[in-house]
């Protein structure tokens, strides 16, 4: 089922300088990572999906609704965007209030909003800190609060902007778990991200944006196999993929488990 359909989408901040040059894409339920160098148009693209910018050309439909006719606030129940920097949104004096802010805005009654917020905090492992001031948490915990504040609104579609940046090992593990849970619930999870290890392990579809166009679109194994393409887009590959290559393997490894299995000879055909 198509959740988002994008037709011939173009955008420019200044006339004559198109940041996006006619993008046509459909998003189904597969979790999707959008990758590309800074300036490739990733951020502009998700802002358009979220209705924060208006396209100069083309159309976007979210769950069948035309985005151009809705405000970002009106889209909030359907599509959520977690911003990269938590300091751009946090303003309440408790973690719980911060997470309840979104649900209350979209008309959830206070009792239900609290339940949803606590549930979302549970998911990111911060339920015990609900009464604390969010500004007393570490940067990586604040990022998790922001994820919870979107999860609590229960949108069908969630977009995470650089969820692993400024995270330590435990934080990254939590983000991984949250994405897994959301996928189980049938949500469409999208991300714009530079962390290729994380992409390879957690996403089913990878789209490379390059200078405002779609350079490639496929499953991660397919994408990370195309060395010269990645180089052209100025992108790296996952560490484990690199290790496989350095050992002269032809197979593109995406996860450690896969690599280990293969090395143990459990997947001899891969050699």
């Amino acid at each position, binding site marked *: 089922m198509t959740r988002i359909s994008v037709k011939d989408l173009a955008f420019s901040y200044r006339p004559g300088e198109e940041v996006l040059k006619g993008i046509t894409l459909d998003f189904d339920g597969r979790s999707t990572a959008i990758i590309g160098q800074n300036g490739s148009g990733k951020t502009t693209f998700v802002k358009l999906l979220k209705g924060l910018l208006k396209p100069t050309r083309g159309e976007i439909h979210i769950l069948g609704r035309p985005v151009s006719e809705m405000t970002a606030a009106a889209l909030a129940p359907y599509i959520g965007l977690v911003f990269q920097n938590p300091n751009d949104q946090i303003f309440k004096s408790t973690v719980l209030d911060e997470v309840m802010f979104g649900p209350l805005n979209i008309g959830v009654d206070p009792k239900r909003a609290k339940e949803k917020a606590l549930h979302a905090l549970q998911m990111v492992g911060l339920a015990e800190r609900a009464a604390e*001031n969010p500004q007393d948490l570490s940067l990586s915990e604040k990022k998790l609060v922001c994820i919870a504040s979107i999860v609590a609104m229960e949108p069908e579609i969630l977009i995470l902007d650089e969820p692993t940046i400024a995270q330590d090992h435990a934080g990254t593990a939590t983000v991984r778990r949250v994405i897994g849970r959301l996928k189980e619930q049938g949500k469409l999870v999208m991300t714009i991200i530079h962390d290729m290890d994380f992409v390879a392990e957690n996403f089913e579809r990878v789209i490379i944006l390059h200078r405002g166009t779609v350079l490639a679109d496929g499953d991660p194994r397919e994408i990370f196999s195309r060395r010269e393409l990645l180089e052209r887009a100025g992108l790296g590959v996952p560490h484990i993929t690199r290790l496989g290559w350095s050992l002269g393997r032809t197979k593109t490894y995406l996860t450690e488990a896969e690599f280990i299995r293969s090395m143990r000879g459990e997947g001899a055909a891969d050699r």
Partner: protein
Amino acid sequence: MQQRSSWFRFSTPSLVLIPVAVGINYVGKLFASTLKLPLWLDSIGTVLAGMLAGPVVGALSGAINNVIYGLTADPISFVYGLTSIFIGLVAGIMAFKGWIDGWGKALVVGLAVGFTATVVSTPLNVWFWGGQTGNFWGDALFAAVLAQTNSVWLASFLDEVVVDVPDKLLTVLAAYALFRSLPKNIKQLYTGSGELESLD
């Protein structure tokens, strides 16, 4: 309620607070106009600086705010620098004296700041504009009172009251709401005892 340790400390945190206070003033005004609110809300930073770092830093934030605003946008703001100084001073002194632990007290601080601003601005208005404030509705009141009473001072005072008191009251309430939600690790920078304890 934490007791302020000293009237002011010219520490690095206090100094870097001043540009931030000026910025908050500006952004407050920006958001008020973006949201089309019938208020200026352009002293939130000054009041917050007073609450956090004491009257001297508050007053300094107010003064520097108007100097910068005078240099960048509107030279008349130099004239009203004195009002800004007193806003920071009063907010700082009252916070310092403990008037900062509840909405009721914040309301009183708001009124105090509003009336101080009025008392300081009125002579400036009389000297500079002949009594007006430059605000349309306030000046209409000025004209009406002047026509009725022939008193420039009374008219100017009332003009200033209607223009300033509601605005400053809401400014202080907004600043207090923000102050309340500040994290410990920020407040601590300005309230610390300054003592160094030995663990040896």
